[in-house]
């Protein structure tokens, strides 16, 4: 089932992603987009791995690897900060102030 394992993971992950955010209110569209943007910042990990295995003698490889890690880190860090700021708006403030 080798190749199929990947396919199953893909299918199930897609299902999970889809289900997990169904019924999201409009007001959260942008923060959620930003949040998922942050999550794929995990590409940083991949970038680190490839840079880590790049030939230290080959400047082309090092440059590409550096760029990859730089971009990945920026994605992760920027995504987090921006999302966090957006979601700070929901900080309870507007919640039930007293039930009718």
């Amino acid at each position: 089932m080798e190749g199929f394992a990947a396919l199953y993971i893909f299918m199930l992950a897609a299902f999970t992603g889809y289900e997990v955010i169904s019924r999201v209110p409009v007001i959260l569209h942008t923060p959620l987009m930003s949040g998922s943007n942050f999550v794929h910042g995990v590409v940083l990990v991949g970038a680190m791995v490839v840079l880590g295995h790049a030939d230290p003698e080959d400047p082309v490889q090092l440059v590409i690897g550096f760029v990859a890690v730089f971009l990945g880190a920026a994605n992760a860090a920027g995504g987090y900060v921006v999302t966090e700021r957006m979601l700070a708006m929901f900080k309870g403030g507007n919640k039930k102030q007293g039930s009718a």
Partner: protein
Amino acid sequence: MANWFINASYFVVAVVFIIGLKAMSSPVTARKGIVWAGYAMVAATVVTFFTPGLGNVGLMVLAIVAGGSVAWWSGKTVKMTDMPQMVAIYNGMGGGAAAAIAALEFARGEVHGPVVATLAVAGALIGSIAFSGSCIAYAKLQGIMKNAFRLPQQNLVNIVMAALTALLGLVIIISDVPSSAMIILFFVFALALGVILTCPIGGADMPVVISLLNAFTGLAVGLEGYVLANPALIVAGTVVGAAGTLLTQLMAKAMNRPITNVIFTPISGAAAGEGEAIEGTMKEFSALDAASVMRYASKVVIVPGYGMAVAGAQHKVWEMAQLLEEGGVEVAFAIHPVAGRMPGHMNVLLAEAGVPYDKIFDLEEINAEFPQVDVALVIGANDVVNPVARTDKTSPIYGMPILNVDMAHNVIVVKRGKGAGYSGIENALFYKDNCRMLYGSAQEAIGEVITHVKALES
């Protein structure tokens, strides 16, 4: 052992990412969600340093610190209103990183076999498009690039470019050891494709496009995850790819723009920057949008009219108002002197619904407040909120004082269709930029809004 530990950590990270995303889809838990995901990200990064045989650690740390701090700082300092372009650019960077990973794997000659090559090429293509497309989106939103820019025969050009790029990709996949030139050409084409796809899209559609590119990046990351056999990338990337796709659909639906329209027949919203749009169009709004906008407003003023009476919607309206108040929104009712068809028509209905008198204001009491009002909700009223009464001397309602709802930040009008009011004239309000139409008989429309307001609570 190290490997096992790293894989286990990645597994936990993937689980936390999913849980975090789930939390982010409800206003109540959203903040917790991002924080959890943040911890997971840090853990993943730290753990990766323990990968056996990892070299270039100094360079790596440098890149992380440089990229991370630039992004962190810009994200912290940017104005709230500039957020969308920041999301775009960070997303682009993620796509770029995915593409760079593919590039490096090719450079290292580490891509073996047609399946892996296909995945790598696909990831590189999608990542590149996300990268260059996001850059364009950023430039537009930031005002660096002013005009939507349309090639003649845009759609044809798109198709040709896409075909060429795909062809190049195919060549790379089948050639055992693809030449550097070939690879570079492929990336150039892929990046160009992102540019020409995004260029013609107008400012109004940008959020949808960014969301789409976000899904792209997710997918690219997932694909590169397969290339690197890294499950954290696979799962996180795929989940984001799927979630992002759904989100893109939801956003397009909320804006009433089918996703294909966004890409293939863009509205040149950027043009609005120049010639003042005097006419405008009537823009539709869904009940969910109305609910969200009101739920997170601080002040909502409800303007009932004859339509509310016809629909007998007063009970629903009051129920909605109460729900909003429970959520901390300030709600007031504004009654125009001649709303309805008899003196006190609205009073009778609101009293019937149980609206307390201290929430009901007349024109003189409330008209000055509209500029501070977040949302004016007009329910089945028409003539009494028609700004032509202030401006157009020829109009039959000229000189009648009106409720200045057009001065509120947002106006939502609930009515069944294009029906005119008692005086039979067109209403200029409906065409204003800050006005949205929620079509439907008031009873049902408000009922739907209630459902969504409630859903926002839970």
